[in-house]
């Protein structure tokens, strides 16, 4: 998987690690800004109110 990804990244000796970094940062940003905030309400840490729904 990562081997395939690496071989398909653009750039040469310098460009490829940069491209990999950019890709990694983009994935982390997506996780922190979209995926994790979406997952959060489904976990118990944020249930602090009393309500009918439990």
């Amino acid at each position, binding site marked *: 998987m990562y081997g395939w990804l690496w071989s398909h990244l653009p750039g040469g*000796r310098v460009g490829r690690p940069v491209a990999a970094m950019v890709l990694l940062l983009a994935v982390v940003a997506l996780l*922190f800004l979209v995926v994790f905030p979406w997952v959060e309400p489904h976990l*118990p840490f944020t249930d*602090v109110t009393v*309500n009918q*729904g*439990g």
Partner: protein
Amino acid sequence: MSVDDSGTTLADDQPPAQSPAARRSPPPLSRGRRVVRTIGEILITLGVVLLLFSAYQLFWTNVSADLATQQVTDQIRNDWQIGQHGSTAGAPGSAAVPQTFNPGQGFALLHIPRLGAGWVRPIVEGVALDDLKKGVGHYPETAAPGEIGNFAVAGHRATNGEPFRALDLLRPGDPVIVETADSWFVYTVDNTRIVAPTRVSVLLPVPDQAGVKPTKAIITLTTCNPRWASYQRMIVTGTLVETRPKSQGPPTALGSGG
């Protein structure tokens, strides 16, 4: 030797026996090995994602909530200085007239000296997740600060700024102070209870007694229990013991940290 853009490497430090061609294309993996390798990579990736999620929950939500808390606190103090709201809510020092706030709007400050010198969090209207990221949330259907009835608020015990992390430290007699635009409302803690998450009767004007007309002003703080789980709620209740106009200065119960 050189490297070109296609990634062909003719590294100088390779043993001469290994030809560039051999290095470029290792013998193709068998299908089984490729499958196993990919599964391994996916599992490692999932592990890293879980670690990142821990970092998000334990660190990131607190950082962003602290920022939001500070902003709302500043905004509330700012509003009070220019007298945007609250000043028409009755004479200073009188119990606040019920008033409505926009969801997410900060309208008061909560001081609990037991949780630390100078401990203060903004109280915002609403108990949705987005409201609770800014501080402590006021259950919209409950009384206003100082009003006869039940002023009920909820706060996180873990993550997102975790204002009520140490709520279990509160003891009967501890002061819980609500600061509004023109008044200080000093409540003292009566008791702490652990109840089921569906026990909405704790929010009634007289807790657990439906239809009874309240005669006292009380405060109710709710958070989750145990700290990292959600199968119970911790409920702290207190009674109003002092109402003090802002002009008389902060109450002694606040200590020097306020």
